[in-house]
């Protein structure tokens, strides 16, 4: 056919775009989290799966409601709510009452994300705020870590909890491999370091996370705890123990690298990761809580706009100087 009867469409250059999209990124993160979901079901039973499902559905529903109230396009299907739901679920014990899961999800999506303006506008990591909210509101339920492979619901303290309350001697029988594969008590996603590493590798290959943040974060914590271990091995646990236990792996690879709440430029990212690692170490060794990753990341999230501002300022000054 030769004649063109339809009007042409005018858009501005460039007229071709990448195949990548927000949905693709988010759903790839979901896939990267699947190994952790599988290991949590393996160790803690199908209750774990129900926590994940309830969290995801509540997150999507909360976002849907807010979209409708704001009369904007539906963003609940672009995958970010699903990621928040899964991350929140992986951060709580598998025996947590489902109503608390719902509450945590609502806080994570509505208060932390939507009230600030929606995707891209939140300052704090939604899953972490949800988790910390639950921890502070329901401290007993949130620290009732089920024992892996238990037939009945028996709970015991997590390795870090034992370390905090009873000291180094009590954790001597927890082997490295148990920590690595996850046969320990803890929140659903933080137990298996192997599953997290597999997921992180997938994201790194696709280029969706910059490895410098998690590696500097983990490295700093390792060094900090290592220094104190060398000073007094009877009072401080080995840095390898600290590496594999608690939410350090999950936090470093999936929470600190969250695009919206981490700095845009290299110097900011390095400072962010370093301070996260430092704060985690300080809280773990000297603070009142056994686990410090969530708080460390949230504190540093608050500094991210400042870090970005500083980086932009330096960059502008540098460009002016070159002229």
């Amino acid at each position, binding site marked *: 056919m030769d004649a063109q009867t339809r*009007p*042409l*469409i*005018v*858009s*501005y250059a460039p007229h071709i775009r990448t195949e990548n999209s927000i949905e693709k990124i988010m759903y790839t993160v979901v896939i990267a989290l699947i190994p952790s979901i599988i290991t949590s079901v393996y160790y803690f039973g199908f209750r774990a799966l129900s926590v994940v499902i309830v969290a995801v559905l509540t997150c999507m529903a909360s976002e849907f409601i807010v979209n409708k109230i704001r009369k904007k396009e539906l963003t609940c299907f672009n995958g970010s709510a699903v990621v928040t739901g899964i991350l929140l679920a992986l951060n709580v014990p598998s025996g947590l009452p489902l109503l608390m899961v719902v509450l945590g999800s609502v806080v994570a999506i509505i208060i932390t994300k939507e009230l600030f303006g929606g995707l891209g506008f939140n300052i704090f990591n939604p899953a972490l705020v949800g988790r910390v909210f639950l921890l502070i509101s329901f401290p007993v339920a949130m620290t009732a870590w089920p024992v892996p492979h238990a037939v009945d619901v028996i709970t015991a303290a997590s390795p870090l909890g034992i370390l905090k309350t009873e000291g180094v001697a009590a954790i001597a029988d927890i082997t490295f491999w148990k920590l690595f594969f996850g046969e320990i008590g803890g929140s659903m996603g933080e137990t298996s370091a192997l599953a997290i590493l597999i997921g992180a590798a997938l994201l790194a290959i696709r280029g969706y996370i910059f490895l410098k943040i998690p590696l500097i974060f983990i490295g700093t914590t390792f060094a900090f705890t290592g220094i104190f271990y060398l000073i007094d091995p009877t009072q401080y646990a080995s840095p390898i123990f600290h590496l594999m236990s608690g939410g350090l792996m999950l936090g470093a690879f999936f929470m600190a690298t969250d695009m919206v709440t981490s700095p845009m430029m290299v110097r900011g990212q390095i400072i962010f990761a370093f301070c996260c690692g430092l704060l985690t170490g300080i809280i773990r060794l000297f603070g009142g809580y056994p686990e410090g990753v969530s708080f460390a990341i949230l504190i540093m999230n608050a500094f991210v706009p400042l870090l970005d501002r500083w980086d932009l300022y330096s960059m502008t000054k540098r460009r002016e100087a070159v002229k």
Partner: protein
Amino acid sequence: MLNSIFIPVITLTVTALVLGISIVLVSKKFHVDEDPLVEAVVKLLPGANCGACGQAGCSQFAVTLVATRDPNLACPALSADGTEQIGAILGMELSGMKPVICTVKCQGTTAVAKQTAEYHGIMDCWAAKQAFHGTKVCPYACLGLGSCLSACTYDAMRIVDGIVEIIEENCVGCGLCIKECPVNVLELQEKKPNRYLVACRSTDKGAATKKYCEVGCIGCKKCEKACPAEAITVDNFCAVIDQSICTSCGACIEACPTHAIVLKEDNIRY
């Protein structure tokens, strides 16, 4: 046990007292003397902070007026009554502004004006002008993407059928939208009970204008001939009505073959 109640209570009370007294002292020390006149004037202003008076907001207008007592300083959003009231407070005659209203000199809705192409991009008239000539073939047409709308602080504009429409009850004639139009299709005109105007600026030859718009002015001069007061001049194939001569007889609107002339009934008492 009493200790554990007394000590906190006393400490907190003392802290509260100290802080409270400091606040009072500081507020007295840093007190800004507000001229009661300024406050009275500000109360009568619309508070939209549109900047049309040339000052940086309504409070600034009040401060400048009270300080300089300049009779020519005027707020376009004030009615004649409002201007009188302010004048009364300050004990002076304010010249005020003649009531003006914004007009769109284009009627090219999607139904009557030929479109060029669909536009996908930033919905702003300047942005569209950068990408291409515009959504309408006519080079003088309103683009209908609303750059003027974003400047209006009185909620007096809306986009209907691809062009901008003025919501006359809300327009105060502040003029902020005029600068925002890349094709200069907006004009401020003095309010009149029956205001006739040519809603077209096309200076293209009649045949060309007719090709791209059904309601454009083709420069046929029928209105010029029909006008008993000689208020209409057709220059470069576009008719312009001189509002200072026009007697609102309505002969032109009947003579116009393309309906390019429109009638606006302004409410002068606003």
